[in-house]
């Protein structure tokens, strides 16, 4: 019998707000982001991009670039040895444009040289002759067929209807509106960067890159290089944020091609301007919605028409469309629906994944509708939502039953219970920084009106439409030290922290080594869709349980005890029915336990032609209340407070959860009042941080948070994904608050000053 150890309690298990393991390197500047990686003898790579949204390429003359001393490679489409196109769903996007360019910024050529300035001069020396063509920029023309196809795959990427229930119901109360969202950019800070190291035989390559899904990148890169996948080895370079913009290939294939062509390491790094052009964006969208309700405000039927502008290439537009239209009813009971959804191709910038993935657009529309409904029946924003609030067992308009925990009413009530701001307009100290306009000193307190607004959302988690987005993890235990290996892209969200917490909780060890994140282990799926805690957490959890089972087998054998009686208590293996207690360290001495586990969620279905089918995996819910101060004459807005209650299942790391909520709200605020990529006839006007405005310290309000923890039995750790919901209903809450302050309707985000103060 061993003495019970009197050491401190094991910290860093699930539920603890422990610090992230890469925190100290990040604060000291030693953490290596992909742009910080280098290799001896490397060359810089750079990309030549189209200045036109739509043009035929007549000729490309590379000779001027070759004349510049220091240039080592100049490549175009003819230098792509494998597949000439790539893409996440359809492979419609060329590595380099061949005979036509379809958006401003489309890559045409790339160079490798000894200095970024040499690259710039080389690109400037390439002469491309274009025949400029009229750009297709109006999505309606893509639908009505009045513009010639800008791509062989046609101008409609996907069309899907949802038809459910009684199509003839007319409410005694009817409200309708047309809602518009501009193009938001993910604007992660860590600019695109990669380092490619060619194998000496030129038949393989190693790539360090910041991305969201290593294995999907690997697949596409290998196809374009004409290599078997195991010859393309990817390691995750430190990622400076993603938010969906790294799901698609950007510089990966170009960097590899230059490295293979020169036989030398190649580094590529985008400037901010290039980054704006070089990755996909959130879809601009126009949504018409009409709600039919009874005199109490109960929804009888929803009609809607969604048009998502997918830009020049398909990316994930078809999936974004499905997410958008299947969430058209919002977190509300609704039995009858008529929805028409389009994702179309234009010569605008390509669009794809951004945090929220189609549901941001749907939510802006359905929340605007709910407020209109409240007014029409003489109710208020909270009461109308509580009246219609979805519950577990209700159905989506796709027919799918919501089996998850669905505490919609609780989200609303707990948000309402959070105190309103204690300070009046301008604050007790009358600090001008608290007013709209801030240090611009544009307003006095008397010019300001305060408004309150609401937004509530439902968001699907994980991938949909029969996609098996599984995740893999490998856990090893030897001599009391655990190490875990996964390909899960850590983009800042803190999976590396949670992984350690899972291991500590299940195996009772203090020390957990997070191994290099690369393609030498199975796929973890994408860091998106609020899925990694559930899926990769599930994989780590599964691998740990297998290791623990193995450990218990061993201990059981050593001590003649049925392994089923064994359990982990703190740092020890304990016999629940006897007196055996041995530390995990001792129990695993001399052993090398090694298990790999794939976590799959339950299968989902395709939608039929009426949009019916169990196409989603799981759902989470959230409510937001916004308080804003508005300078009505100048149209300037200051968001004073956001209160939120979010359905998170279980807080595995409360501090991390708060970080995701506050960060997501900041992005929702950005879309509400300041963020938009402005395109005029396909040309981008504001590809810089000077004119694409992100919220600063002086723009972000206080955030009051209530975490709703009703563990979801469907989730492997009881925890739902938390990343997307904060950015979904925060936007409509802010816009609703502005409407409340000014007494005017607003139908578009981002709201501009002249929308508020001019006719």
């Amino acid at each position, binding site marked *: 019998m061993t003495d019970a150890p009197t050491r401190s309690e094991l910290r860093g298990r699930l539920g603890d707000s422990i610090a992230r393991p890469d925190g100290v390197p990040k*604060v000291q*500047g030693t953490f*290596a982001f992909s742009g910080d990686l280098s290799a001896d003898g490397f060359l810089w790579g750079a990309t030549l991009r189209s200045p036109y949204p739509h043009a035929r390429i007549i000729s490309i003359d590379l000779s001027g670039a070759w004349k510049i001393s220091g240039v080592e490679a100049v490549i175009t489409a003819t230098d792509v040895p494998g597949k000439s196109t790539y893409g996440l769903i359809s492979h419609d996007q060329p590595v380099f444009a061949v005979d036509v360019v379809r958006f401003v910024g489309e890559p045409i050529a790339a160079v490798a040289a000894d200095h970024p300035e040499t690259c710039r001069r080389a690109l400037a020396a390439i002469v491309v002759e274009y025949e400029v063509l009229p750009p297709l920029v109006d999505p309606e023309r893509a639908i009505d067929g009045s513009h010639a196809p800008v791509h062989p795959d046609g101008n409609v990427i996907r069309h899907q209807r949802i038809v459910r229930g009684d199509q003839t119901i007319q409410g005694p109360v009817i409200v309708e509106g047309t809602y518009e969202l501009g193009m938001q950019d993910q604007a992660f800070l*860590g600019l695109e960067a990669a380092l490619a190291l060619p194998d000496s035989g030129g038949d393989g390559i190693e790539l360090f890159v910041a991305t969201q899904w290593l294995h999907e990148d690997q697949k596409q890169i290998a196809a374009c290089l004409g290599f078997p996948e195991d010859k393309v080895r990817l390691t995750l370079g430190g990622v*400076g944020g993603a938010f969906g913009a790294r799901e698609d290939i950007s510089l990966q294939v170009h960097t590899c091609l230059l490295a293979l062509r020169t036989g030398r390491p190649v580094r590529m790094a985008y400037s901010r301007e290039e980054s704006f052009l070089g990755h996909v964006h959130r879809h601009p969208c126009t949504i018409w919605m009409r709600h039919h309700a009874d005199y109490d405000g109960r929804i009888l039927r929803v009609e809607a028409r969604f048009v998502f502008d997918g830009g020049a290439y398909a990316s994930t537009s078809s999936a974004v469309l499905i997410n958008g239209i299947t969430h058209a009813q919002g977190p509300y009971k609704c039995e009858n629906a008529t929805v028409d959804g389009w994702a179309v191709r234009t010569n605008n910038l390509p669009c794809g994944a951004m945090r929220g993935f189609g549901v941001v657009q749907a939510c802006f529309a359905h929340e605007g509708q709910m407020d209109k409904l409240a007014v029409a029946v003489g109710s208020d924003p909270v009461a109308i939502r509580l009246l219609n609030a979805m519950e577990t067992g209700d159905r989506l308009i796709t027919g799918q039953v919501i089996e998850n925990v669905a505490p919609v009413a609780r989200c609303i009530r707990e948000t309402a219970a959070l105190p309103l701001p204690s300070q009046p307009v301008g604050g007790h100290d009358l600090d001008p920084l608290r007013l709209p306009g801030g240090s611009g000193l544009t307003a006095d307190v008397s010019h300001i009106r305060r408004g309150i607004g609401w937004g509530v959302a439902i968001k699907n988690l994980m991938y949909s439409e029969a996609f098996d987005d599984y995740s893999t993890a490998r856990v090893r235990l030897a001599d009391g030290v655990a190490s875990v290996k996964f390909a899960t892209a850590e983009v800042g969200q803190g999976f590396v922290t949670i992984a350690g917490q899972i291991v500590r909780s299940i195996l009772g060890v203090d020390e957990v080594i997070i191994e290099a994140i690369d393609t030498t282990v199975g796929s973890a799926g994408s860091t998106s869709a609020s899925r990694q805690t559930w899926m990769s957490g599930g994989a780590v959890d599964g691998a740990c349980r297998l290791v623990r089972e193995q450990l218990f087998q061993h201990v059981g054998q050593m001590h003649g005890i049925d392994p089923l009686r064994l359990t982990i208590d703190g740092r020890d293996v304990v016999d629940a029915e006897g007196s055996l207690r041995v530390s995990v360290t001792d129990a695993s001495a001399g052993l090398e336990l090694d298990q790999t586990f794939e976590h799959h969620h339950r299968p989902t279905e395709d939608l039929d032609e009426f949009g019916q089918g169990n196409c989603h995996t799981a759902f989470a819910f959230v409510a937001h209340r916004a308080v804003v101060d508005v300078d009505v004459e100048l149209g300037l807005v200051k968001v004073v407070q956001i209160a939120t209650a979010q359905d998170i299942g279980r807080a595995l790391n409360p*501090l991390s959860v708060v970080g995701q909520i506050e*960060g997501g709200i*900041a992005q929702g605020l950005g879309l509400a009042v300041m963020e938009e990529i402005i395109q005029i006839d396909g040309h981008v006007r504001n590809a810089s941080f*000077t004119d694409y405005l*992100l919220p600063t310290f002086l723009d972000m309000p206080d955030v009051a948070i209530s975490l709703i923890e009703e563990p979801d039995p469907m989730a492997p750790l009881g925890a739902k994904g938390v990343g997307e919901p904060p950015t979904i209903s925060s936007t409509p809450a802010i816009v609703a608050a502005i409407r409340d302050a000014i007494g005017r309707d607003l139908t578009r985000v981002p709201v501009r000053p002249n929308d508020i103060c001019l006719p």
Partner: protein
Amino acid sequence: MAESQIYSLHVNGEQREVADAWLGESLLFVLRERLGLMGSKGACEQGECGSCSVLVDGALVCSCLVLAAAAVGQQIVTIEGVAPVGSPSDVQQAFVDAGAVQCGFCTPGLIMAAHSLLERSPAPSEMEIREELSGNICRCTGYGRIIDAVQRVAVARIVVNGRGIDGGIKS
């Protein structure tokens, strides 16, 4: 490339020679690519994000907006000069403990700005913190935990010494 020059810069207390440089390079580029100090980050190259923040003669500036060759003779302090590797400063540790670090790309610039703020104003109000850090953009955190980190340091410094310690960065 053909045009290259040699000059020297005073960085983190040391004289460092810069060789093979093109004179149009920013201080950010030189720190990272010539002197191996990768801690300062470039996210906009316009002075609009603060990720590249360093101290030049004690003043917090964006290193992307400093012409490196014109910084000869000035005292430059980067994130690497704040504290020895493995022994984070109180500001750095507070960021870690308060959950103020997610992807970490803005973090070195923010550490510089936070140190600079606390040196100028040891007991800053919340609005003062917001204004003094408003030149640093973070896309991940929404700023709440960062403000908390700075406030924790301000309180801790007063508690330790009763009147504020000199937590400044020595150049």
